[in-house]
């Protein structure tokens, strides 16, 4: 039987394959050869065969038939065999495999081997993928090695212990004694891994955390030595001594200093020192600064130190390196709640990051921008954010629109109305989440922004042509079309405007669509009715309205019946509508759990007006928005003054009488001009 081909030769051969099929054929052929070699229990070439199998596994081919062979290699006396065997185990034998546990004994033996490199292999494998059972069985061995004076083994044992603790947290206690003098080590490898181990223990147990707080002075000393010591060729990275160890110490200090005044005070000076003295020209220095900032922000640091930290982040934002800008934004996002004013100072730089090419940076800048919006900067910020919303990628639109809308709601003022209407429209058109109960607010906002009516109704109409599934959008759009339909068809819009019948088609479509909720249908019907005074196709509208007079939806039916009544009884007003008379229909609804009975609506107007209240549809307003009371008011306004009204509602709710007074001053100008 010829010797199995060498690993490198196999790799060379496989790479000559020109197609996937050719490669698969080569692999299958070699696997067959390897299988028969395994069956023959060939000790000499087992290592070579497993190595080849690992190569093929990396290419994506199954290699499970080599699992037991890895175990045999681990049990071999040859170092070469063990090296490949353990590698194979780490690649093929994770804890989900049944044979995994069979490794335990081998690892145990190798942990006690006379050669440290064999011990190292065992520690590495255990620390990388040991299962909970294995960790339980071997924790004692690891603990022993944690106390050895051999730093090569000690550092590995420390990380192995970290893995054991992650898998079996109850075993943490047993490693406590061995941690006693870990930090007295001079060897950086041991120091680094010890700090990692201590960090893991402190994170998992408040008792451990309290116990290890006494190490703060020692940690501070070690860190200080690293910074102050001269050039150390062994640990130097671009002029900084062992940045990995520095970062880990800073992280442990963070955990120890959190919620503890004394510890925080003890580390204050060293943090200030690192923050001011670390070289920032390369990534390595910035990595340390970054960790320092995170620590300063998390512990109980004095305000001067906090400001120092935020300023570091501010400088990061201006760094040419986009990685640095990215971490700055991430960190600022974390601190914006607690140090709001300090972060505000960097607002313009943050807003500039909205224009960054990188998606991750843009997202963070957006989140941070929203966090920074307040009453003072709303105008400027809104402009930037709307621009961003308009030009950003689809994946951002929903979140951005949501944020814009919330900002407008929270900080909007009357003087910013048109800006807000744009904001609101953008949100609604972005199809983003807009709460159902904010529809009246949106309508209010739009009403107040007179100069935007034409633009608004045009955009909303266009949106309806594309999509009628988003109910808030549809409701607002319907209302606008009903109210400003004349602007929609009159040529006031820049683009090609629809004709009346097209508009009515759209509204009727809403009535019949099963995407429309009953509330939406109500909006649509009312809008159609309102267009009877704006459009000329009155007969068509009359027909639609009369059809819905027998709708099974009670709400629609009621509206339709009343609108029908308007057609019948008040049609004479339509032919020669008295321009001095405004007809107002009120709809009263009740979202509470109990109905309102004896409902009476009263209104009073200024002296120059005359008011006529027609009979209400009912004086009971059903609970839970299950119906409305409608009432028609006719207002005579010969002097064409701005309509103002004082209204009074009285009703009985849950047995008690209720009275509500209000003033209504925002009637649309068309109602009195």
């Amino acid at each position, binding site marked *: 039987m010829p010797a199995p081909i060498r690993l490198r030769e196999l790799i060379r051969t496989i790479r000559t394959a020109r197609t996937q099929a050719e490669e698969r054929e080569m692999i299958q052929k070699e696997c067959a050869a390897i299988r028969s070699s395994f069956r023959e229990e060939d000790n000499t070439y087992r290592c070579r065969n497993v190595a080849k199998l690992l190569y093929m596994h990396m290419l994506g081919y199954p290699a499970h038939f080599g699992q037991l062979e890895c175990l045999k290699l681990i049990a071999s006396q040859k170092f070469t065999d063990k090296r490949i065997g353990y590698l194979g185990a780490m690649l093929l034998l994770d804890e989900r495999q049944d044979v995994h546990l069979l490794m335990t004994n081998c690892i145990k033996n190798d942990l006690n081997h006379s050669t440290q490199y064999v011990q190292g292999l065992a520690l590495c494998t255990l620390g990388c993928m040991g299962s909970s059972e294995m960790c339980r069985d071997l924790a004692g061995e690891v603990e022993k090695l944690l106390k050895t004076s051999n730093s090569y083994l000690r550092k590995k044992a420390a990380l192995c212990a970290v893995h054991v603790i992650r898998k079996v947290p109850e075993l943490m206690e047993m490693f406590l004694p061995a941690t006693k003098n870990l930090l007295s080590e001079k060897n950086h490898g041991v120091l680094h*891994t010890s700090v990692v181990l201590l960090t893991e223990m402190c994170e998992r147990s408040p008792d451990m955390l309290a116990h290890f707080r006494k190490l703060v002075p020692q940690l501070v000393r070690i860190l200080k030595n690293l910074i102050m010591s001269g050039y150390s060729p*062994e640990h130097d990275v671009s002029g900084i001594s062992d940045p990995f160890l520095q970062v880990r110490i800073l992280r442990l200090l963070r955990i120890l200093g959190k919620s503890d005044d004394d510890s925080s005070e003890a580390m204050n000076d060293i943090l200030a020192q690192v923050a001011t003295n670390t070289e920032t020209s390369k990534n390595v220095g910035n990595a340390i600064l970054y960790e320092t900032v995170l620590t300063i922000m998390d512990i109980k640091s004095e305000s001067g130190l906090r400001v120092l930290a935020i300023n570091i982040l501010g400088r990061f934002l201006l760094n040419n390196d986009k990685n640095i800008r990215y971490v700055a934004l991430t960190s600022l996002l974390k601190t914006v709640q607690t140090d709001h004013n300090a972060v505000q100072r960097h607002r313009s730089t943050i807003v500039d990051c909205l224009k960054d090419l990188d998606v991750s940076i843009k997202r963070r800048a957006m989140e941070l921008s929203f966090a920074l919006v307040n009453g003072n900067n709303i105008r400027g910020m809104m402009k930037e954010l709307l621009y961003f919303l308009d030009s950003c990628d689809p994946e951002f639109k929903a979140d951005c629109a949501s944020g814009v809308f919330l900002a407008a709601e929270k900080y909007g003022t009357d003087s910013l109305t048109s800006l807000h209407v744009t904001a609101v429209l953008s949100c609604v058109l972005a199809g983003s989440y807009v709460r159902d109960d904010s529809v009246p607010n949106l309508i209010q906002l739009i009403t107040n922004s007179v100069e935007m009516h034409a633009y608004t109704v045009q955009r909303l109409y266009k949106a309806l042509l594309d999509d009628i599934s988003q109910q808030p959008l549809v409701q607002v759009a319907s209302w606008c079309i009903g109210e400003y339909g004349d602007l929609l068809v009159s040529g006031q819009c820049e683009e090609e405007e629809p004709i009346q019948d097209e508009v009515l088609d759209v509204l009727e479509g809403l009535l019949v669509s099963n995407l429309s909720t009953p509330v939406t249908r109500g909006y649509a019907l009312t809008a159609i009715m309102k267009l009877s005074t704006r459009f000329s196709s009155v007969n068509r509208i009359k027909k639609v309205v009369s059809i819905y007079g027998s709708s099974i939806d009670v709400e629609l039916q009621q509206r339709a019946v009343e609108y029908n009544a308007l057609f019948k009884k008040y049609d004479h007003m339509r032919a020669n509508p008295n321009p001095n008379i405004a007809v107002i229909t009120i709809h009263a609804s009740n979202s509470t759990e109990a109905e309102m009975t004896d409902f009476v609506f009263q209104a009073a107007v200024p002296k120059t007006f005359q008011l006529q209240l027609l009979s209400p549809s009912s004086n009971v307003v059903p609970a839970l928005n299950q119906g409305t009371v409608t009432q028609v008011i006719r207002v005579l306004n010969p002097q064409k003054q701005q309509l103002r009204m004082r209204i009074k509602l009285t009703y009985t709710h849950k047995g008690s009488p209720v009275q509500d007074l209000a003033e209504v001053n925002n009637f649309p100008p068309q109602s009195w001009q």
Partner: protein
Amino acid sequence: MSLTTHFPLCFLFSLFQMQFMLLFSRQGKLRLQKWYVPLSDKEKKKITRELVQTVLARKPKMCSFLEWRDLKIVYKRYASLYFCCAIEDQDNELITLEIIHRYVELLDKYFGSVCELDIIFNFEKAYFILDEFLLGGEAQETSKKNVLKAIEQADLLQEVRHRMKSK
């Protein structure tokens, strides 16, 4: 927006951990995979496939970090190879870049001006070096010299033809 996925619970155990490291070529061919969390072969393949696709789609001007599922991905391209690490939310991305760089330096010193072919033909050595530098996803040795010395000694042991005896 991140996709919700059902990740095994092990992913949630610690705050600072490197979960895995992948090396792949510009054509998406895997050259090294080191997993520090237990996952089935199927899951590993799925993650690898998706992540490779995501990273290869990144433009040169973009930063080295991206959010992917619940993890942070730190990647850097050296010549024709992408080095890609998955770290957890609380981890320091910038120092992870230094970890990657240190590994590249070690490979470079060992192979003498390393290139992708070295990693392809000596993949087991690449793993050995990684395993002397990181253990369980954490750096076990911060001195370049010490890592290379250990590898050198271990390589010498391989040359020893006679059997070793255990204690």
